[in-house]
């Protein structure tokens, strides 16, 4: 029984092994906002800055150059200015428990 339980856990989909993730963001996922000066991602536990980060891309998939800062449990992207259109944030974070989580969300910039 124990063995089958552990094997079931091992064979289960990735989220079973995953850990703390993105709690919220500003702009929020799927939001429509005016050009933001900052994009902030808040995580549910402390991050390891060496292995955490985020990037921004436009609707064509082209990466937008931004400076990023990883804090205790947040990542901040500082885009210069964003033209109206759809954008995607890809993020990855590693907590003190060494577990890596990754994801993405989109938002729209309106005139």
């Amino acid at each position: 029984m124990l063995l089958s339980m552990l094997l079931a856990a091992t064979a289960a989909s990735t989220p079973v092994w995953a850990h703390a993730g993105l709690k919220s963001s500003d702009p929020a996922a799927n939001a429509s906002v005016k050009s933001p000066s900052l994009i902030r991602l808040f995580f549910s536990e402390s991050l390891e800055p060496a292995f955490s980060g985020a990037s921004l891309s436009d609707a064509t998939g082209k990466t937008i150059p931004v400076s990023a800062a990883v804090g205790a449990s947040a990542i901040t992207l500082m885009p210069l200015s964003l033209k109206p259109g759809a954008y995607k944030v890809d993020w990855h974070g590693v907590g003190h428990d060494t577990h890596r989580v990754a994801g993405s969300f989109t938002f729209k910039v309106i005139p």
Partner: protein
Amino acid sequence: MDPSAIQAGARGLYYAATMLLFGDLAFSLLIRAKLPIIPPTRNRWMRWSALALAGAAALAWLTTAVVGMAGTFDQQAVTATVTLTLFGQLFLVRMLALVALVPVLRRGAMPAVLLALTALALPAATSHAAAASPAGFTVLGASLDAVHLATAGFWIGGLAVLLGLHRRKEPNILLALSLFSEWAMIAVLLLVMTGLINAASILLGDKGAASLVYLAVLSVKLVLVAGMLVLAAMNRFRLMPQNRDQTIARNAAMELSAGIIVVLLAGALGQLQPTL
């Protein structure tokens, strides 16, 4: 196999090995101080095996953690892990503690006990209990988890010492058993209390619904711990007054086996996502 499953195994084996080391050294020292009539217990084979296993499991744990965090295993990723992450920095301290144990392991005095405790308890700082603690209470969560690990270690390692005494047909084994019972009762009380607090901080609050897999593994762990408590109570309150040391030794062996499985399950719990 999923690297997370390997990491769960490495973590469980590391805990099992360091618990045996710490509990063996601590209870042996206690026997030496309180029961000088019993010749020193120096279970060399078990101590050296546990130390070697702890070192190997720690390296396997580091390897899987590096791959998990960096997505690759190369010199740069290893260097970044051991110098820039909390887990890596504590890994170095744990390895130093294990290496420092080599010259003092045979004698088994207080420095050896403290080094084994360091190696056992430090992973608490990167545990679920620490991560799930409210802001500002991370140190408290880590400390409670460290107490949980240390008391479990005393219980499991102490049982191994008792079995060693039984194997060498120690005539005063019931004195040692009585001493163990006194201290183990305190250890088990602390173990259960810290376990309940840890489980509450990990699973309760606004963290979402509990994961069924996590709950299932936790339930099996709790059932086994309950079985260990029944065996311990049977030994202490029924068999000890009747001096039935053969049955006591058999129960202690069963208790120790269940304890090792519990520790391996704890290794898996440390890897599983507690809430959805």
